[in-house]
């Protein structure tokens, strides 16, 4: 099958949608399909994998609390048309189809290929789509099959766009995480001797990722476990969140900054407990899947999305959102209970199998096959 995938966000800036498109493309290629990805590229000198075609440079637009990098200009439109002509695709799979970038440009330009659209965002706080929907309706009508990656994204589509959506969850490349080697010196293996290594992954200066909650909890944990360490992986201004910490806390924390894919997998393998203290705004919880794939026991905020990914809370310990005291107690208890930790690992490994990319990609291919069943009469 010749599949054209469209990613609206810059390929060279790590992000959830981009990672999804990349993993899907690579899994489909392994399955023997021909795949081409169209994505904006921020840095002209970026080295792209052979299956990626650039949709041109990006405009930076502040949106929903972060900066969206979008290709929405005449040059991108021309690149979209050329890509469609060269690609001769059996099926077009557009991610975030209404994003004002390569996605909506492709939706406008495509005329022949059956189109599948995947919606990622839940965007509870954005009224953007409601405002533009009348203008986008004709383009939305071209989408033959709609996929949502989370119940929150599905609810968003049902309420704001109307109609049905197929739920196919985000995938995770389980083998990539399960096989990674821990970072040198981690974990120290001191859980039985007043220690224990805890991991965090996410933007450090984005408050809804919850690092301040974890830092407050970690401070308290050190009273009970003076040898505990905290591994923080993720981009952002460290001084904004850690500037006021006393030295005795600060020196127990390693800030690793933004990590490569390789090192990210190793970081998950380097801790005794992985913590996701998010305070909201999460529609899926991909970090939890990655942690489960890496075999790290999880302590997470009791958010709907997290509870669901953790199979009703059976594959991780949940604590009340934003409650540093409860988090400290939960961490302390779990670090002192090796039996419970290995139980959570085993349960996590079982849960994450459903989200392994080969399984998820097969469900997506079933959608392609279903829209293609109709293709011969579908032209024009």
């Amino acid at each position: 099958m010749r599949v054209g995938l469209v990613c609206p966000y810059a390929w060279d800036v790590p992000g959830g949608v981009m990672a999804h498109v990349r993993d899907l493309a690579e899994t489909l290629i392994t399955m023997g399909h021909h795949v081409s990805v169209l994505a904006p590229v921020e840095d002209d000198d970026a080295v792209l994998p052979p299956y990626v075609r650039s949709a041109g440079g990006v405009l930076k637009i502040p949106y929903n609390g972060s900066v969206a990098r979008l290709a929405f200009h005449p040059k991108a439109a021309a690149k979209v048309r050329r890509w469609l002509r060269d690609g001769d695709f059996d099926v077009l799979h557009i991610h975030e189809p209404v994003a004002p970038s390569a996605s909506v440009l492709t939706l406008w330009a495509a005329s022949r290929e059956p189109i599948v659209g995947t919606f990622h965002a839940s965007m509870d706080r954005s009224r953007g789509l409601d405002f533009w929907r009348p203008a986008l309706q004709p383009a939305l009508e071209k989408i033959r099959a709609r996929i949502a990656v989370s119940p929150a994204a599905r609810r968003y589509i049902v309420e704001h766009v109307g109609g049905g959506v197929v739920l196919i969850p985000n995938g995770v490349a389980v083998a990539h995480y399960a096989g990674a080697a821990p970072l040198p010196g981690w974990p120290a293996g001191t859980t039985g001797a007043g220690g224990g290594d805890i991991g965090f992954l996410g933007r450090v200066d984005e408050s809804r990722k919850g690092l301040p909650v974890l830092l407050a909890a970690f401070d308290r944990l050190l009273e009970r476990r003076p040898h505990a360490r905290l591994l923080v992986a993720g981009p952002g201004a460290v001084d904004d969140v850690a500037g006021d910490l006393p030295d005795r806390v600060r020196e127990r924390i390693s800030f690793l900054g933004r990590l490569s894919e390789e090192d990210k997998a190793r970081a998950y393998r380097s801790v005794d407990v992985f913590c996701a203290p998010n305070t909201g705004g999460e529609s899926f919880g991909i970090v939890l899947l990655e942690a489960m794939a890496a075999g790290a026991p999880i302590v997470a905020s009791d958010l709907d999305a997290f509870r669901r990914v953790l199979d009703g809370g059976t594959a991780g310990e949940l604590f009340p959102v934003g409650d540093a005291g409860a988090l400290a107690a939960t961490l302390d208890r779990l670090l002192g209970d090796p039996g419970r930790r290995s139980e959570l690992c085993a349960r996590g490994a079982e849960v994450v199998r459903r989200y392994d990319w080969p399984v998820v990609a097969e469900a997506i291919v079933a959608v392609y096959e279903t829209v293609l069943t109709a293709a011969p009469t579908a032209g024009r």
Partner: protein
Amino acid sequence: MTEVALLVAAVVLLATYLTWTASRLDRLAARVEAAWSALDAQLVRRAAAAGQLAAYERRHSGLDPSAAKVMEDAALRARIATPVERQDVENDLTRAIRAALGAGVLRGGRSEQLLDDLRDASNKVDLSRQFYNDAVRDNEGLRRRPVQRTMCRFRRDPYRSYFEIADAAIRGSDRPASPERRVSDLPA
């Protein structure tokens, strides 16, 4: 002079709008037809797979013979159903498949292959029904608007309405039939 220019501009705008709307109606009508042919094909595939599995199992006794017989009959009726009875007959087939799979444990090489075919076809029945109903909904949404409704009087698109059947997917834990959603639960 200005009036003439304005009139010409208005006519050109109107013509552009009507042409564009007509192509939108064309596209939606084509999408509905395509989605219907996909749904039809998947339903036929499912009936064929169910019939083959039932026939095989009846001979090799993996399934309860009476449940296999019911499934085979239901599959046969699905193949020859008229458009009017189709939704009910397909629901009957879903129930018969569930009952048959709940009644007997399927094992062994060949029937496993046949069961995989049935599972895949059932899954795709659900997908294609969803995509078809979405297409119908988008189509009706547009055709209800006044200008489009008038334009549609001059078109000869076949009328297609929602196809409502209960979920067909076969899950690991399928037990004999449970109460199904009724056909009368149609969206208004």
